[in-house]
């Protein structure tokens, strides 16, 4: 698919879908240790025109290992007799390391005409992570980057389809740095490739901020093995 406006860093809804498919394909090809992105088709939004992008990309249940055990807030102690007798066949696990689970969605923003990364973290069991807990999980260089850069910052926004607040990397600067990224490729590749390369290039930047390492070969189109990472997959 030829990109309509490769020079300004934005893409149209149909281009987004195309680029998404290209990302999914490339991701699988590279045999990432993370499991594949899934395309979630969208229901029609209640007001206004149907979503031309038609859906979004989802990568869920990514682990982040936490090496401190969180304190359980137990309100009332129940005696064993009250609930059930101790059973010899049950393995009782002592202090486990806490794991955080993250869900990532790549959603097209119609107002900014760029993809936006939405993410949400949870404790084991389902309690959502608070902003400061998420920030602790991010790689060290990210918090510095977030403070300094006027192009990358995390905000909490309403998820366009799921009706609850998610964290996002605010998209207002995306078209600017995408334009710079794409300019390099503009001269070396065919226009058709530019569109399919869009999300891959975008992800190579955004993923790093979140600590969601793209496999090295995703961007470089070679088949080397992927690096170990902060996040691991859990299907």
């Amino acid at each position, binding site marked *: 698919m030829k990109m309509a406006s490769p020079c300004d860093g934005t893409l149209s809804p149909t281009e987004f879908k195309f680029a998404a498919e290209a990302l999914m394909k490339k991701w699988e090809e590279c*045999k990432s*240790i993370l*499991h594949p992105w899934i395309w979630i088709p969208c229901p029609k939004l209640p007001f206004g025109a149907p979503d031309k992008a038609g859906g979004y990309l989802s990568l869920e249940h990514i*682990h982040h*290992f936490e090496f401190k055990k969180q304190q*359980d*807030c*137990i*309100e*009332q*102690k*129940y005696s*064993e007799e*009250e*609930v*059930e*007798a101790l*059973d*010899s*066949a*049950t*393995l*009782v*696990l*002592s*202090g486990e390391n806490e*794991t955080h*689970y993250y869900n990532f969605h790549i959603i097209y923003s119609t107002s900014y005409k760029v993809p936006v990364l939405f993410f949400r973290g*949870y404790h*084991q*069991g*389902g*309690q*959502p992570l*608070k902003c400061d807990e998420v920030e602790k999980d991010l790689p060290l260089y990210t918090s510095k980057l977030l403070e300094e850069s*006027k192009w990358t*910052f995390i*905000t*909490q*926004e*309403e998820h366009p389809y*799921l*009706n*609850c*607040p998610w964290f996002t990397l*605010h998209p*207002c600067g995306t078209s600017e740095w995408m334009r710079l990224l794409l300019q390099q490729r503009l001269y070396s590749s065919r226009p058709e490739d530019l569109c399919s390369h869009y999300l891959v290039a975008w992800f190579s930047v955004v993923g790093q901020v979140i600590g969601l390492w793209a496999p090295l070969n995703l961007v470089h189109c070679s088949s080397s093995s992927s690096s170990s990472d902060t996040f*691991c*997959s*859990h*299907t």
Partner: protein
Amino acid sequence: MAESTVLQFSPFQSHVEEGFWKRLSSLKLNTLGLDETPVKITGFYGPCSHAQVSSHLYLLDESLPANLAEESSSSEMVLGNRNRCPIPGTLYNTNTLESFRGLDKQSLIRKEAKKIWEEICSGRVEAACAVLSRFLVISYADLKKWTFHYWFAFPALVLNPSALVSKLQPASEWFNLEEGKSLSEACNEWRKSSLTAVPFFLVIITADSHVTLRPLKDWETCQRDGHKLLFGFYDPCHLPSNPGWPLRNFLAFICSRCKIEKIQFLCYRERHGLADLTHSLVGEALVSISQEWKNPQFIPEAVGWERNGSKLAPRRIDLATSMDPIRLAMSAADLNLKLMRWRALPSLNLDKLSATKCLLLGAGTLGCQVARMLMAWGIKKITLVDNGRVSMSNPLRQSLYTLEDCLNGGDWKADAAVRSLKSIFPGVEAEGFTFAIPMPGHPVQAKETAGVLEDCRRLQNLISSHDVIFLLTDTRESRWLPTLLCTNANKLAITAALGFDSYVVMRHGAGVSADDKDASFSVCSSGIEGHESRRLGCYFCNDVVAPNDSTSNRTLDQQCTVTRPGLAPIASALAVELMIGILHHPEGMNAPGEMASSISESSSQPLGILPHQIRGSLSQFSQMVLVGSSFNRCTACSNLVVSEYRRRELEFVIQALNHPNYLEDLTGLTELMDKARSFNLDWEEDDETDIETVL
């Protein structure tokens, strides 16, 4: 493991997604109400796919029926997919925390265990094996605090005596190379097929190392065929020495239905969506069928309440940040301002803004607009003072009021305004006070004195407890006392006043300090009165008469209730923007007044110039920025007046209220006027113009 030990199972772990709680909340609000009938739900799980983390039993929003009518009509389970085997469950939702805590847990688990046992005995398990992992959840939804208390139980039929394990090793060691390859292929095939949402299956290994997977219902035929037989299941557990919980009921089924006591099982685990034979386990369990089980009336004991950490206790999840609409509104408002800061104005001091306390004297056309604008800028503390009631014509021009507020004689404006502000933005700290501001020229009757003094004190206290005071009343004289008090307390005062088609918005100069040297300034012979160059003027600094009763004989242009509607929003907006400018200026209140032409000043402040006065006219669609110094004979802010106030306080105020001439005498304006009148001007008598106030 050399000798047989008791087989220990790793308990199932639950994970409830937010969507489930949201759907439960809306079900409860719309359908269930106080009904405590158990609700059929569906849990989902898949085989473990990670070496270090077990997989969980998930509750998603699809776990609950969208409405309860749907539930009874379809006995089919929710469709799963390869990673989400549907497991039937029951939800017992209670209406109070006490009833949640008081539920009889032993009887509940026994009830579910009974269902499982009956399904084993009746043969239902062979048709729909997921029922072996049937579970229950008890819950209490606190919809005021958006917290949910819950507790899962995964009933496991207790084998008596316990099952023993004689062998447990990775599958790759148990199967030979060919078998292993065949098993992987078979599993991957199976997992890709439509049959895959089935967590229990049979593994048949023929003599020629060919492996096939078969559904449970084929167990009889498979036994007869005589090939090697393994009982396989999706194992959520990741541990290398323990199988997962689903195996417990599976063993119970196998020994009671298939009558096998030496059971070889496969704990199926995956990696990257494919069978992982090093991670998967194969073991041999020794189960003895007890006599009791042969008794048709018998129901085995069950265990399986989920532990919270290592304790048997319920869990609690707090979803206020994502479900409480008030919190959501507040974080959205916050985001708006932050974006402004990030993208356009990095020097915007949002913390300072949200900590600034604003007092609005007057809750009319100006007051309502100013209040809204302040909230838009992130000001959280807003106090309104007005002595009137909302009247029928008000809602049109006074943007906080609606028809409701006018009924039954009309609510007090201060109260109605506060209500309205809170309905727009629940995070605002708004307070209203209904009392009149004492005014010079409106003499105080003896019996009213105590009340008026009380009002003066209230005004004093309000001014001292706020940071910025907006003078938004509808008469000139009502601005006198606030101006004096603000000057005395050195508080930032911003005035907005309207004429028929003109407005003035200005910030008062800083307060007078006790040792201000400009106490007296003699009249120059040229007749031009000297103005203090340092301090900026107040609303009254341009006047040469003291404020007096303007209401009785108002000329048309002094009745600001009859003004062009466009004026109030314009003036109010300017007043608030002026305040924002002051708050961001390094000198704050003491900043000098700037004009548009002062380019050098304006380039240093990101918000632009900081004017002293803005005077505009709608008839010309024009606006002027002016600077006026303080007048050392000002009836409101001059050192003469302020020091007299400090000396005699409220006694002085009463005197000024009752005798406006007093102020003129005190400041020497009387003298000035006399001098001016007696000034010998070289023009005709009939051209003499009275010196009047300007606005």
